[in-house]
């Protein structure tokens, strides 16, 4: 367990944050403007015990901006809004869906699928919202 704690410290990646953009070749005045380190954890995670990082595999959610291999930051403690990306259990499996609210009824839709394949949440009470996706981490290069 000690090993894990240490791992967390490494996860806390901080980058010096400059208030001013500085032209190349004349860096010294910049040091006066270093305010604080930037902390990605505190930016991406508001409620640590309730936040999980999940890796996705597959291409069905490309149109909502989720690509193969991306990392999802999932918060279990917050309520989903209209058009929130959510993790939910459908047919005994965890899946990524979009929550859509229409005239007081909530539906789950998958990215590219047609409207007819949407799942009515009131008609399927066994389906629960596992968590709400707050950020997607996508490797660009």
């Amino acid at each position, binding site marked *: 367990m000690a090993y894990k704690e240490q791992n967390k410290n490494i996860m806390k990646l901080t980058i010096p944050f400059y208030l001013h953009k500085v032209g190349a070749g004349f860096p010294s005045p910049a040091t006066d403007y270093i305010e604080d380190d930037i902390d990605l954890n505190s930016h991406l995670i508001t409620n640590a015990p*309730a936040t999980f*990082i999940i890796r996705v595999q597959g291409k069905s959610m490309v149109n909502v901006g989720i690509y193969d291999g991306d990392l999802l930051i999932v918060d*279990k403690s917050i309520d989903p809004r209209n058009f929130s990306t959510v993790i939910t259990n459908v047919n005994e499996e965890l899946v990524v869906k979009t929550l859509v609210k229409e005239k007081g009824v909530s539906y789950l839709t998958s990215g590219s699928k047609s409207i007819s394949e949407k799942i009515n949440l009131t008609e399927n009470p066994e389906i629960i919202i596992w968590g709400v996706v707050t950020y997607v981490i996508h490797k660009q290069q």
Partner: protein
Amino acid sequence: MSFINSSKKNKIALIDCNSFYVSCERLFNPKIINKPVVVLSNNDGCVISRSIEAKKIGIKMGEPYFKVKELVKKNNVYIFSSNYALYGDLSRRVMKTLKSFSEKIEIYSIDEAFVDLSHIQEKEIENYGKEIRERILRWTGIPTSVGISNTKTLSKVANNLAKKNKSGVIYLKDNIDEYLKKFYISDIWGVGKQLSKLYIKNGIDTAYKLKNISNTWVKKSTNVSGAKTVMELRGISCINLETHEVKRKSCCVSRSFGKKVESLEKLEESVTTHCLNAAEKIRHDNQITRSITIYIRTSPFDKNRKYYSNSITIDLPVATSNSLELVKAAIEGLKKIYRYGYFYQKAGITFSKLTESSENELNLLAPIMENKSQTLMKAIDFTNAKYGRNAISVAKAGINTSWKMKREHFSKIDTASFKDLPMLKI
């Protein structure tokens, strides 16, 4: 007003995770919800956690796996090898969630904690318990039971009742005796095997009977903690919440082998690995050790082979947390107790007489190298934390480690490591 306050009784809640290891496995695996599930101990040895469904089938806690294999097959029970990285992370999340209610908590084990709720109004306490339960379930996905009463011992009783209650929350205040009359003596917190034997011999077989025993008899026949239990059953708080973590005095790492081990070489690998793990642990806590014990044994149940068990303790000239020195001492010790011709089942090491690293008195024997080696150890710990345990190791630990743990049903999910994050197919 102050008079009323001082007569106010403590309120202590015990929060206990339901079938904790099973609940952890279920978090990312909805397929096994409402199905019989069992988690096995190290080396897939015994049942250490089971779901209600598995309990109903007749699978008992602590039973060896081979004994329940038939039941498992017949009832399609889902089996898991223990995944302590996952359970550890979820445990920390549960405890952190609890701390959002009160800082006054005592983490009692990986899946239990006491919380002081004395500041909560009498009429709100049951709802408060429900709120604790709901928040832990929502945030972490782990179901819990909450037992609340005036003492730690009674909160344990309350928790036992809450496990059977639909709401999962019990505030034990009225009719306590009714419950205590049905509460079996050996189920009481702090009453171990020996003590319950003694009580039963004297006709005390329920918590109610123990509560009404005479003080002189208890003091005469048991010890201080026995008397404390009796007082606690009467609603008088005697065992305080230990909210501060106590640094460990010793550190032990041991494992049973997946396959029996005969050669000294293989034992050396295992002892070295245990030594490295323990050294990393104490370094993390900024501690050093003065004494190291190595032990090995064969299986006591193997009737076809001779039994052998031995241990040796080596006192180090200078307290240290240096992996290389500790491994050297451990191997020397192992060579002294190793006997050829036995099939070893278990090996372990214990560091004792641990002290704070800063308390390290100046010692003429302390090599000047110590500073350098500390830097080396830090570099090793950092690299291993980053690239996975044993990325850097010592050659003695071996590469082909056939003695390693058997984990045939391992879920391989670690919510606290980028390497093994839960995966979703979309």
